[in-house]
């Protein structure tokens, strides 16, 4: 099942040139870039692991692409995303965040039904990836 999160989530995966162009745009806006990865792709998991330090004061996308190549080599079976943080006063949050790498195959999610009082049903989504402990989720 294909994970759809963040900006461009319903487009086909961006090529490296397209990623580079997006990063160029972010840098032109003066946003700080960072790369994050996770093996727990639940939509509510907003705390992904950071890969390296956030990158401030870059002028060219090449710097982020170097880190991205490195991240892909280190975590070939994780989800990796690129974030752009806008530090302007009053905004101070992510402006753009998109997935740039996904494991193959993607584990997908299961819908769990909880039967509660009066035969009410509560639904919850759980990633198959989290069946196994952290670090062993993508064999």
């Amino acid at each position: 099942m294909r994970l759809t999160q963040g900006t461009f989530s319903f487009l086909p995966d961006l090529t490296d040139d397209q990623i580079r162009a997006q990063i160029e745009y972010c840098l032109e806006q003066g946003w700080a870039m960072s790369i994050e990865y996770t093996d727990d792709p639940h939509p509510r998991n907003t705390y992904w692991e950071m890969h390296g330090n956030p990158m401030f004061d870059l002028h060219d996308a090449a710097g982020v692409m170097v880190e991205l190549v490195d991240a892909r080599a280190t975590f070939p079976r994780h989800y990796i995303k690129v974030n752009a943080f806008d530090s302007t006063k009053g905004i101070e949050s992510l402006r753009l965040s998109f997935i740039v790498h996904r494991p193959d195959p993607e584990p997908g999610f299961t819908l769990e039904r909880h039967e509660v009082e009066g035969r009410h049903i509560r639904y919850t989504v759980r990633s198959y990836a989290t069946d196994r402990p952290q670090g062993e989720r993508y064999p």
Partner: protein
Amino acid sequence: MTDTAAELDLDGALAETRVEELLTTLDTELVGLVPVKTRIREIAALLLIEKLRAQAALSAGPPSLHMSFTGNPGTGKTTVALRMAEILHRLGYVRKGHLVAVTRDDLVGQYIGHTAPKTKEVLKRAMGGVLFIDEAYFLYRPENERDYGQEAIEILLQVMENQRDDLVVILAGYKDRMGRFFASNPGMSSRIAHHVDFPDYAPEELEAIAGLMLGSMQYRLSADAERAFADYIARRRSQPNFANARSIRNALDRARLRQANRLVARRGSTLSRDDLMTIEADDILISRVFNEDADEARAPVGS
């Protein structure tokens, strides 16, 4: 037929990059430095031809552009590096054309595992532009084999080799120490295509530089002051710690200070625009350079 086409092409390429204009300002704004300017012209010509060759589908691979600037302090290495960044940008060899100037402190960490991220961060900041490493020989400290500088050099070398399209590295420093640095790091030396040496300025060139500096600050020297300043340059040059153009700038800054003091002392009389602009001989002659001389002259008499 093909000849004319090529000719037109060259003119077109020149006009398009507007690099000629930049080289002309380099000539007018930088006094002296003839070997440096010749070298920059050569590099610019090579890059331009390389671009035309690429258009004609003749490939020689991207030229290596890493450089080393050697020379005494104040000979204009940083200034030329700034211009170089702009020239390379106009010719399309670096994408953004900014200059990131760093020294050992910005590259080398303080404990194990600190150096690599620090160096990489600087390299990432410089990508798309020019990385200027001032006093690069401090990176290598042979007396301490556990020095982290070596790690920074290795990362630097790797990026210089693999990402030639992404950034240009310029190493700068004193000539003899750079020579020793290259001798002990042959990998570095062989990756640098252009070694440019910055000669010291002649006294007349220093005077011309002073003229340019004063012009940009909207001051001028009176006729007496000009003679005094020529004398000052001659004396200052023979003293230790002479830093070429930088010493001239400092001398002028001090002269401005004294001129201001002199004008304030004249309270009561009116000041003209001319007074505000002119530096008199007295403003220069008070300098320590002349006093020390006088002290030395007096010393034997006293003893």
